[in-house]
């Protein structure tokens, strides 16, 4: 009977021990970090494009002899009272300056909004999801786990108190340790199941997020690059003007250096592949899912793949930061 009972416990333990979130903490944490870094880079890309787009509108207005007008008090009331329309209903506050074209007599507010507001929200949702995955895999001290162990301990202590004798006492002690371990393994196994469930359910959405963000990131990058190429032309013109004027040599050299350095930073930015990075997020998530569905796959292999992703995200951010510093 003893043998049967112990064998039963051993089987239960073996079943519970099969899968564990502990071994997934490293790859899940790497994926979570990469998603966060990608989101930060995507947001920065969007913000830079937005600022560049505003600058382009102003520069074009100046070149074309258009006028830039400040917003009126009716649209941008400095007092706290809400503005009202002629019908008396509250008006939307709009403090954007306008660009007036004297030839067509058209007046339009400067466009200042980010190009893809919903995708920015999606990037936030993806980031929250990634952080949640990390927390789920790393959660070591769930209060419930402690409660369960305490209950197990109390149960075993009661058992120990009702029996006497060194042989039985040793057995009860062994049961307490075993129960503690078993409860831990059981909860860990439950977390593994939750992790697998949520990763599987979210995989199509992660794929869509990565695909759409990659497509838009490419367009945002194109807009930034074109505007920065224009900046390089402007810098080149400044250098040429100074050189033709034959004035201060140091100023001319400084303008030449600024122009060359701007061109080289643009090159570094152009060489980064934002699409590849986002595709790697999708692949990293798919690899994690595959590994969770087939625990025989070593999580270390998933981690290695995600490590490449982290390197690429870091390279993209570095190039971006460099370009940003030159503005």
């Amino acid at each position: 009977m003893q043998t049967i009972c112990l064998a039963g416990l051993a089987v239960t333990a073996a079943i519970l021990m099969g899968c564990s979130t502990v071994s997934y903490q490293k790859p899940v944490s790497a994926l979570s970090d990469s998603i966060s870094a990608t989101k930060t880079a995507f947001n920065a890309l969007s913000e830079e494009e937005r600022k560049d787009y505003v600058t382009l509108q102003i520069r074009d207005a100046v070149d074309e002899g258009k006028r830039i007008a400040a917003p009126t008090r009716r649209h941008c009331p400095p007092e706290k009272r809400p503005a009202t329309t002629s019908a008396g209903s509250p008006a939307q506050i709009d403090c954007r300056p306008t660009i007036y074209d004297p030839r067509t007599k058209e007046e339009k507010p400067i466009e200042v909004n980010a190009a893809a507001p919903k995708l920015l929200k999606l990037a936030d949702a993806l980031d929250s999801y990634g952080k949640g995955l990390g927390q789920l895999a790393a959660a070591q001290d769930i209060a419930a786990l402690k409660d369960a162990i305490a209950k197990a301990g109390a149960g075993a202590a009661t058992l120990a108190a009702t029996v006497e004798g060194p042989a039985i006492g040793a057995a009860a002690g062994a049961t307490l340790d075993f129960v503690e371990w078993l409860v831990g393994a059981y909860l860990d196994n439950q977390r593994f199941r939750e992790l697998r469930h949520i990763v599987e359910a979210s995989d199509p959405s992660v794929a869509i997020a990565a695909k759409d963000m990659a497509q838009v990131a490419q367009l945002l990058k194109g807009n930034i690059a074109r505007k920065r190429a224009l900046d390089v032309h402007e810098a080149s013109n400044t250098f040429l003007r100074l050189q033709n004027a034959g004035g201060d040599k140091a100023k001319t050299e400084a303008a030449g250096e600024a122009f060359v350095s701007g061109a080289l930073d643009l090159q570094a930015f152009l060489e980064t592949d934002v699409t590849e990075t986002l595709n790697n997020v999708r692949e990293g998530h798919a690899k994690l899912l595959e590994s969770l569905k087939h625990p025989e796959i070593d999580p270390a292999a998933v981690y290695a793949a995600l490590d490449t992703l982290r390197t690429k995200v870091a390279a993209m951010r570095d190039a971006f930061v460099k370009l940003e510093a030159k503005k």
Partner: protein
Amino acid sequence: MSVADLLHAVCATDDDLSSYMDVVDDEIHDATIAGNDKLASQLTSVLTRLTLLAAKYDRRQITAIDDSQEVVDAIKQLSDASTYMDDVIKGNKKVADTLGTVTTVLGALNGVANKFIAKA
């Protein structure tokens, strides 16, 4: 009508625009090589207009992707996933269920242990 407006009128696609930009860019380069800073500056103004037009083309494409239903669905799905994980981590729902199961397992273990002790 300015040169840039004319170009805007004839540019049917982003590719057309890109070709015009290449031409203007080459002209700026030639003016620079020739040391003609005035012409280079004037052509750069044309390039500014073309760059703005290209940005508008791209923003139109971005809006089409941004407004798609799949983006809206993905936001909801991932937000739901985060809420679900929060529940699991904080023990609001799933871990409570888990605890119930753990108690059952412990009950069974106690039973097994009792039998084991009785036979010892």
